[in-house]
């Protein structure tokens, strides 16, 4: 490595030369656009491949001829049975076992006890407090409808992830098939999943559950694989020596040894499930998400904000709980300890539960708080939002005019003006620059299908909006991150804000943003920027915090000023992390741009919305793949670059 960085190898030199030549070609194609043959400007109609048609044919075959429908319906019946049980327990839906609903005081007490067992007093207060908040705000029924789906979907997803992850770990072929599938699945916009689910499963809570399972399973698979791989061979050896069978080796040795990774997987599953709460309600997931959309439809921002807060609270609670579980070490009691000593939490839980049931028998308020009795923050929130909007309205008016006339319309026209051939060559050039011929080919193989699918113009509009949003997000996020990272306390607070922003249902932003800017690209970009800044901010802070203190000290000793320290020491070292942040920011923007179709866009998202309402699987998936490929293209470039930087840094320091 050291040698390479000291004398740039001929390979690296060639890489730069080829990239420059390709860039020049792209520039020539762009400059000469008006004299280019028509085929190089846009792909001729005749060359567009009817992917959507093919996909629909495959789906029709699967559904009608192979009878996959019976299989999916059987699976969904199993899921539905589980959903009915949790629905009965949590909110008293008239299904077997017909014992619910469990009073809210009991659930709150249970949550508080579990919180205490996992993470002591603070987590206990957070857990109990969250459920008390839900009950007192009159959201009990909705929240339980949501949870009744999540408590079924998450375990299914964990089990499925474990099984597939193990399969990938055991068989190399399985991994090779799964890996690209997972890459695509994780960059496919949510709506693209939903259309096949509507066709194969139908609508309703079970469809909501299944779309949640599909969406949340990829990280579990990855982390299972990672966990099983990283089990030290010594542990396996000692397992073998004590005569464990293969099954025992798996369940008693490998899985427990991979515990931390697996529990991070569980944590990811829960977070992803909560992220789907609002979107899944488009296909029938009941509860908070559905209510939120209804309230937004009637412009009740205050009330939907309350629901948003509940979703955030639940997400933070479940996140902290599963992390506490991951970090908890098993406790061993002395064998002669009494039952009470060994099970203090169980004992406390029994007492609290009995007490809770007694309370709810005494007064119905402790079973469910009715909407009429509920507290509400909607009044003050509405007033606050209103005041805020009035204050920034004049600035917004000017900003809207300025951005539309001078930035957005010219940029958009420029993106649409670019010849397809120039863009493809440009992509290849960037690929070549970061990773040689192989990367150039990878990049082209992501970009070509978009051109061939016939959605080029729409994809360019999506790219234009993502580009503008990410640039703005960097301009806002990096300085904020620099300020926040200066003090550890401040950094902590900022990271909590990031968590909140990330789990707060993005649909709620859409309405105030329209009120400020109207239905146009400024509103879309404003909504996307809010979301895209989060990862930039997070990774800037993490990147700066990750700089080794020895280096900072060394720089201080050699008399670096604060500005020098930042420019020459901290930022260069944080670049790889920042690139990962930029990469995530692009992913977030892509997802959000698609959702912003609800404001009104003319990009891939708008078509996706159309495909969803027409239940057109082929079109939906083609559009989904187009979005995924844009994401994967950016992902490939940024991650290759980031890896290079890491290699460069480590070779310099060695």
């Amino acid at each position: 490595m050291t040698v390479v960085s000291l004398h740039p190898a001929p390979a690296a030199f060639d890489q730069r030369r080829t990239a420059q030549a390709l860039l020049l070609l792209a520039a020539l194609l762009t400059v000469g656009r008006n004299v280019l043959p028509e085929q190089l400007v846009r792909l001729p109609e005749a060359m567009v491949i009817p992917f959507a048609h093919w996909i629909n044919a495959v789906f029709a075959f699967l559904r009608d001829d192979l009878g996959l429908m019976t299989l999916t319906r059987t699976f969904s019946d199993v899921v539905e049975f589980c959903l009915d049980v949790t629905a009965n327990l949590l909110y008293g839906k008239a299904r077997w076992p017909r014992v619910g609903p469990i009073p809210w005081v009991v659930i709150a007490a249970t949550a508080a006890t579990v919180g205490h067992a996992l993470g002591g007093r603070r987590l206990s207060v957070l857990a109990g407090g969250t459920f008390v908040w839900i009950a007192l705000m009159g959201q009990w029924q909705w929240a339980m409808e949501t949870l009744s789906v999540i408590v079924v979907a998450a375990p299914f997803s964990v089990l499925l992830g474990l099984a597939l992850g193990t399969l990938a770990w055991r068989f190399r072929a399985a991994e090779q098939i799964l890996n690209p599938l997972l890459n695509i699945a994780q960059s496919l916009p949510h709506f693209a999943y939903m259309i096949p689910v509507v066709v194969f499963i139908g609508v309703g809570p079970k469809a909501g559950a299944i779309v949640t399972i599909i969406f949340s399973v990829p990280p579990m698979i990855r982390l299972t694989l990672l966990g099983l791989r990283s089990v030290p061979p010594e542990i396996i050896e000692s397992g073998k020596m004590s005569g464990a069978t293969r099954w025992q080796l798996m369940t008693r040795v490998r899985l427990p040894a991979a515990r931390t990774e697996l529990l991070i997987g569980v944590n990811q599953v829960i977070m992803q499930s909560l992220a789907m709460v609002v979107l899944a309600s488009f296909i029938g997931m009941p509860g908070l998400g559905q209510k939120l959309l209804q309230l937004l439809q009637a412009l009740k921002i205050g009330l939907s904000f309350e629901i948003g807060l509940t979703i955030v609270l639940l997400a933070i609670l479940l996140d902290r709980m599963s992390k506490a579980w991951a970090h908890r070490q098993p406790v061993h009691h002395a064998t002669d300890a009494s039952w009470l000593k060994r099970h203090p939490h169980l004992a406390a839980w029994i007492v609290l539960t009995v007490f809770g049931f007694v309370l709810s028998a005494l007064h119905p308020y402790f079973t469910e708080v009715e909407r009429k009795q509920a507290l509400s923050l909607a009044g003050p929130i509405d007033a606050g939002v209103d005041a805020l909007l009035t204050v920034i309205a004049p600035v917004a008016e000017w900003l809207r005019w300025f951005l539309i006339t001078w930035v957005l319309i010219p940029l958009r026209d420029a993106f649409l003006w670019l010849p397809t051939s120039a863009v493809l060559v440009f992509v290849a050039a960037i690929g070549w620059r970061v990773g040689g011929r192989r990367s150039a080919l990878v990049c082209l193989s992501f970009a070509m299908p978009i051109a061939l699918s016939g959605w080029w113009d729409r994809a360019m509009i999506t790219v234009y909006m993502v580009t503008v949003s990410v640039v703005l997000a960097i301009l806002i996020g990096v300085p904020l991150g620099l300020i926040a990272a200066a003090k550890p306390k401040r950094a902590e607070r900022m990271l909590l804000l990031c968590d909140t922003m990330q789990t707060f249902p993005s649909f709620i932003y859409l309405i105030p943003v329209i009120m400020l800017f109207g239905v146009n690209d400024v509103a879309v970009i404003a909504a996307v920027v809010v979301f895209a800044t989060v990862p930039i901010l997070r990774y800037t802070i993490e990147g700066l915090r990750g700089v080794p203190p020895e280096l900072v000290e060394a720089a201080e000793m050699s008399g670096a000023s604060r500005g020098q320290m930042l420019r020459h020491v901290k930022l260069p070292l944080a670049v790889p992390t920042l690139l990962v942040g930029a990469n995530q920011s692009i992913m977030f923007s892509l997802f959000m741009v698609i959702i912003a179709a609800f404001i009104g866009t003319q990009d891939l998202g708008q078509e996706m919305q159309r495909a969803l309402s027409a239940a057109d699987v082929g079109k939906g998936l083609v559009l989904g793949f187009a979005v995924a490929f844009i994401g994967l293209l950016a992902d490939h470039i940024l991650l290759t670059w980031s890896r290079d930087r890491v290699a460069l840094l480590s070779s310099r320091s060695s």
Partner: protein
Amino acid sequence: MQRQTRLLMTAAGLALAASGALAEDSSDPITIPIHNWSSQIVMSNVVGQIFEAEGNSVEYVSTDSQAVYEAVRLGDATLELEVWEGAFGASFRAAVEKGGIVDVATHNAVTREDWWYPMWTKEACPGLPDWKALNDCAAKFATPETGTKGRFLGGPVDWLKHDQEKVDALGMNFAVVNAGSAAAIWAEIAAAEKTKTPIVVFNWTPNFAEAVWPGEFVEFPKWEEGCDKDPAVGPVPDKTYDCGNPANGYLKIAAWDGMAEKWPKAFATLQKVSFTNAQIAEMAKLVDVDGMEPEEAATTWLAANEAVWKTWIQ
């Protein structure tokens, strides 16, 4: 609430005695889909509570308002209470052609969807509601993104409203901007209300917006049959869509074709269900203006309008 239910139960008992001829309904729940606008949710709850009074069990499921026709066709949802001619006519007809869904009844209510403006707009453009007057003040509706042309804020593209064709046919100085959802249109109106900015948007009736923002539809050349297909029909001889939308579209009830067999009594009731524009607006108002929950609003409405629905279950 409980007294209310008991009242309904007695009513149902009477109804049951009267109609002994019909076969028994299945004990499986009737699945009623609900969407994201209040009149439909309340109406679904009203009909659902009537079914419950007849002894059926009912479940509500939230769905997309276009995808629902596929769900009804497959029997995943049992019925749909608001089939708007303008908005869902195409999806409904497509589903009918595929089979599995039947046209049960038509509400007394008529629907209208067209260009609409809130009252304050009239101050800036006094000649309204005439479309020529609107065209003359196009500049007052201009926005940065539409340049010198006026902006018309249309509904989502998948509503297939042919506003652009209308603008072209009538030679209007307007640009059509499509909002992505109904909520986006309401947000624009709410924002315009603060500064009393003139605005012209796509809107429809019956709808909660009428109760919140009084307004009027723009009067285009009257709709004539064939105006959308035959250039000769309408005032402009060589253009289609040179007219307004029909001012009296239907509002239908659709159901899964297995419903009549599985829940014959409920189906018989459903065939009689019919609401008027005023009743639908009232249902929406209970939720959107009075702030009730949909279930509560349905119970309130049923209690106040016994004379209306009692006849349906006899």
